[in-house]
């Protein structure tokens, strides 16, 4: 027997022993097995292996298993709402949306208030500045030195200044 054929046949032996092959495949393996003592022995061992493996018995679930699963499912069910989604799965995006909208509204309001506040502050500053300037000017005028006699004489040469009153006629301020 060629090695390649041997390999192909060996891969089929368990399936053949377990009656898992298609009829045509099973026929070709049978033809070979009937002529090959080694493969016949292997098939017999596989058949015994199948029986031996049956000795590993299944273990039944504990009596409480069904109740446990039912309780777990009921617990999930109570948290479940539309289309199998949990309340948390539905509420989370809704809460997030509400939070985002609220934050945006608060932000916009604060920004608006800040703008208004800024505007009024500037107006007040301008008003305050104008008032201060006027007061300073008034003080300056009030504190203007009154011309004395000698000053008057010195300045009398100027035509316009000569018309200013003398020292005894001080501007009463």
């Amino acid at each position: 027997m060629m090695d390649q054929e041997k390999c192909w046949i060996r891969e089929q032996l368990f399936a053949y022993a377990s009656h898992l092959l298609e009829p045509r495949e099973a026929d070709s393996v049978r033809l070979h097995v009937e002529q090959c003592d080694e493969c016949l022995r292997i098939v017999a061992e596989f058949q015994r292996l199948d029986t031996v493996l049956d000795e590993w018995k299944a273990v039944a679930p504990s009596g409480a298993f069904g109740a446990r699963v039912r309780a777990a499912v009921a617990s999930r069910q109570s948290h479940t709402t539309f289309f199998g989604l949990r309340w948390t799965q539905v509420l989370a995006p809704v809460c997030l949306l509400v939070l985002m909208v609220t934050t945006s509204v608060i932000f916009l309001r604060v920004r608006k208030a800040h703008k208004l506040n800024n505007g009024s502050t500037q107006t007040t500053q301008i008003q305050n500045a104008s008032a201060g300037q006027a007061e300073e000017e008034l003080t300056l005028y009030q504190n203007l030195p009154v011309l004395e006699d000698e000053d008057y004489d010195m300045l009398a040469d100027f035509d316009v200044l000569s018309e200013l009153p003398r020292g005894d006629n001080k501007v009463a301020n």
Partner: protein
Amino acid sequence: MAMDQDLELMLRVRKGDSESFEVLLCRHRAPLVSFFIRMVRDQALAEDLAQEVFLRVYQARHRYQPEARFTTWLYRIATNLALNAIRDRKGSPAGLHFENREGESEAAKVADSQQAADQQMMQRERERLIRHAVESLPDKQCAAVILHKYQGVDYRQIARVLGVSESAVKSLLFRAYESLRARLEPLLKEGRL
């Protein structure tokens, strides 16, 4: 036909029929727990994992599409959970506790069996050898053998469950059964220990 019944039941569950889910639970709980016990070798963990499978089935009921057999879907979830549990256990110190616990329970079993008949003790020893032979296979081969031999899942379904081709499953099973034949040779030749 069982396949059609499962599909029909699952379609009813999708529509909100909880009684159909109860029927599915009753039909599949024993094979599923048995599958997990063989895979993870711990009854408590096996039942936790089986419960998780049923919960996932229930949670995914609205998305369920009857494209394949119900059991293919069921065992796909189950096999993924089992392989993850085995991988986690291998990578954590808990694995040692698990082995110790198994050892203790084996010791208790042996102590019990001393009072029992010789036949029973011998049967336990044979079962232990078989279990160890299957457990010592690589994870995927182990899963394939348990699905094929003990759960009665066919090649095509195993291929879908493991996410490999059908020919890959044949090759996987061939190698697995060849290893088992070699490891269990004493049982095969002598028939009895």
